[in-house]
């Protein structure tokens, strides 16, 4: 009941915005800026000729590859840095320095190193999503309550058991938060990365639609689709927060 009302409220806001948009385009008699209906027609065109799915597939593939590599690197690195004081002292300044560099700034170097194929955007996605995950995982280890580590020490468990039964499960909620942030950034970056020189992906669709004859209906269609997929990805990550292994963190 409540969620239905919430949905209604957000749909109402969306509706008002679309009406406003439509009215503005009509009043200003813009020749270039499309009406919502033109955007819908443009999207239909993309769906019919099949290019939309190819673009979505290309973007999702790059995000999946870059994000997967980032997860594989970030989680062990974050655990290691969180657990070993020496590793933290040695690596944290470097990470804190690399972290604020915008992925856009990496574009020239990515092109230099990886050319203009899939590897460049994958690298850019990796570099942008790896740091939030390292930072979250490390912080997760640092905030494990001492009473749990002491209890484990009291029972004299092996290092393996300590990691498997205490450290990893204690940090898992934070890891998932890090993954959610990382995936959000990855999706943000793929579009920018694809605007460079590739011939596929949603970022390419947007730039190409503008360049090939000011098709702003397709530009906006691309933007809306990016937003919707971003929403879906975030919902999927939120769903992970409800898994039984991490639910304890959100109880009470």
């Amino acid at each position, binding site marked *: 009941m409540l969620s239905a009302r919430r949905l209604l409220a957000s749909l109402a806001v969306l509706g008002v915005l679309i009406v406003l948009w439509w009215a503005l385009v009509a009043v200003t008699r813009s020749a270039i800026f499309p009406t919502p209906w033109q955007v819908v027609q443009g999207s239909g065109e993309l769906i019919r000729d099949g290019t939309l799915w190819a673009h979505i597939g290309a973007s999702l593939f790059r995000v999946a590859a870059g994000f997967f590599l980032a997860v594989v690197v970030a989680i062990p690195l974050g655990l290691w840095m969180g657990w070993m004081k020496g590793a933290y002292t040695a690596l944290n300044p470097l990470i804190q320095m690399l972290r604020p560099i915008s992925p856009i700034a990496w574009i020239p170097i990515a092109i230099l190193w990886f050319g203009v194929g899939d590897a460049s955007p994958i690298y850019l996605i990796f570099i942008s999503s790896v740091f939030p995950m390292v930072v979250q995982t490390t912080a997760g280890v640092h905030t494990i309550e001492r*009473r749990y580590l*002491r*209890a484990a020490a*009291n*029972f004299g*468990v*092996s290092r393996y058991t300590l990691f498997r*039964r205490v450290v990893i499960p204690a940090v898992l909620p934070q890891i998932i938060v890090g993954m959610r942030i990382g995936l959000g950034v990855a999706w943000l970056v793929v579009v920018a990365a694809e605007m460079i020189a590739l011939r596929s992906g949603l970022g390419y669709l947007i730039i190409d639609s503008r360049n090939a004859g000011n098709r702003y209906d397709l530009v906006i269609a691309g933007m809306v689709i990016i937003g919707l997929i971003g929403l879906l990805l975030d919902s999927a990550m939120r769903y992970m927060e409800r898994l039984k292994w*991490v639910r304890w963190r959100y109880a009470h």
Partner: protein
Amino acid sequence: MRTKILVDQVEKSYASDKGPLRVLDRITFAVGDGEIVAIVGPSGCGKSTLLDILVGFDRPDSGSVRVDGAELTKPSAAGILISQRGSVFPWLTVQENVMFGLNGQAHGDKRQLADHYAAMVGLNGFETSYPHELSGGMLKRLELARALVVRPEILFMDEPFGALDALMNLRMRNELLRILAKERHTVLLITHDVEEAIHVADRILVFSPRPATIQAAFDVPFAHPRNLTSPAAQELRAAILRELGVEIYGG
């Protein structure tokens, strides 16, 4: 009675802004095998510091702690600590928590043993529950089961039932006594609750304010189940409270 724990001239200071802060001042006492000893004292007197040293989480500045004659240098499952805040793992189920300290056995055996101890503390039917689904009293039972299952020789209890309401506190004391009658453990109980000490302990040590010294010792010569309202118990309570600087009248 054979000596289980020997605390010999234990001293401990901590660094503070105003120089070293002496917390424990040459504490010496022995605990017999199977004995239940309670330590009462004003808050902040260093009881928990002493317990940290006895469990092996901390080392004394000087003096020694011997368990069965051997110097204690690190924590071990021979002496399990149960503290007021508790430390059951919120990410493990009741059964997984109880199994935590068990090793070197087949998984099935561990589970059977865990279920046995869960049932002993009255948690049967909750094996697959998570701690956040349990009440405060049940969490204490779970913590007790997790400790008992590894068959510790010593239970160190630091205000174990302090966070519970008065009724649940009483119930847990009875539960503890029922279990201790069945499974003999040496127990060192720290509490600020004199009545709890008289209810449970064989002997009560009264600590002075910081730096802690042993100010007085009382035997509790009452058979279980104890009548806490008997004149003798009331008299003992008044005597202990007097040591703590509280005078009660009309006794």
